[in-house]
């Protein structure tokens, strides 16, 4: 039976579709499995941070943790507030904990700034919504970013209930004041956030902000270690976390 041109094109189309589907299964699926299997590292610590509000001296213009983070990670100095990149920054108490504020706490805490950063939640909404797994939660609690995979859709920014993420609206490299050769910069079009200094954790060091704080207001450690510094602080004093009613399980505690 002679094949007409139309039938030939139809067969070619089906063959192409079949080849595409075959590629999808033979190439993509193993890749997907490899990613998820490999991501399950040995479950060891659960990193968390405790910020002591009483020790933190932001009221006296201290910005050491901010500067430490900026230098360690090549954060750019962006002039317009709209495009700023911030991993850890200061906010006033009443904006961080609006539900805690009444007219009667005005004297004690209001207008007193404290540091805010990515909370590295137990159940992060940003990880839930990322379409490419460019952000994921490590077994040790750190919510990671892969700048190579990020497509810049900014869904994670919409998903974060804390406003912890920043987007590179322009190329950040020209605006990095003092480049740190041990850490790469990012490119325009990707989202970034605090990474709990995972590159320093890998070398057994403390996060930069924790190390540089003169007042020792920030403590970092393993939440699973009952004798560790974090657990001892939490057992001794009352701590609050941001927006716990959302079920995210933040890993940054604030001692009041």
């Amino acid at each position, binding site marked *: 039976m002679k094949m007409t041109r139309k039938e030939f094109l139809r067969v070619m189309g089906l063959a192409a579709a079949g080849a595409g589907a075959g590629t999808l299964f033979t190439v993509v699926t193993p890749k997907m499995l490899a990613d998820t299997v490999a991501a399950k590292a040995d479950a060891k610590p659960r990193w968390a941070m405790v910020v002591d509000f009483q020790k933190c001296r932001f009221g006296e213009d201290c910005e050491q943790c901010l500067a430490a983070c900026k230098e360690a990670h090549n954060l750019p100095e962006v002039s317009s507030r709209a495009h700023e990149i911030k991993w850890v920054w200061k906010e006033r108490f009443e904006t961080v904990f609006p539900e805690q504020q009444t007219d009667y706490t005005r004297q004690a805490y209001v207008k007193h700034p404290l540091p805010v950063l990515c909370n590295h939640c137990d159940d992060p909404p940003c990880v839930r919504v990322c379409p490419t797994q460019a952000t994921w939660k490590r077994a040790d609690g750190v919510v990671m970013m892969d700048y190579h995979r990020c497509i810049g859709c900014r869904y994670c920014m919409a998903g974060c209930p804390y406003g912890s993420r920043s987007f590179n609206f322009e190329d950040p490299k020209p605006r990095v004041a003092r480049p740190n*050769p041990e850490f790469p910069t990012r*490119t325009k079009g990707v989202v970034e956030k605090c990474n709990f200094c995972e590159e320093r954790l890998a070398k057994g060091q403390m996060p930069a902000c924790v190390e540089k704080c003169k007042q020792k207001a920030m403590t970092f450690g393993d939440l699973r270690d009952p004798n560790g510094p974090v657990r001892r602080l939490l057992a001794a004093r009352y701590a609050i976390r941001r927006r716990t009613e959302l079920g995210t399980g933040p890993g940054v505690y604030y001692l009041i």
Partner: protein
Amino acid sequence: MRDRVPIVCGLLIFVALFTVPVWRGLAAHTPARQPELKLPETEKHCVAPVEYMRRAHMQMLIDWRDSAVRRGERTFTAYDGRKYNISLTQTCLGQCHVERKDFCDRCHSYAGVSGPYCFDCHADRMLKTAAAGADGAMLAAQRGTR
């Protein structure tokens, strides 16, 4: 053949456009011989055999990237048993190929490879600008943007 003139003109324009790479190459004085690579002074062995690196260094870099970023495994054991820290900037560019333009760029521009934008972030210029001080930093980083 009434339309001889436009046809011939069209053919000439086509041939000219088709051979543009040749003209551009001649104009840029691109040498025909293979690029000369400046090899590292101190290190004699690469992390993998030369033939493998020639063929598949991009694949190895992708494996390194996924290993370090996604799995947190930062140590690479080479074929000769030596252990390396998985880092494009600190190991590849830091220990051996300190000047990208003397090594990486030579083959890349000869072969017309414009794809890898790794250097947008993992720049060797960063090493030098850190040494040169903060003043040179912004200027040099700006030049290194593209």
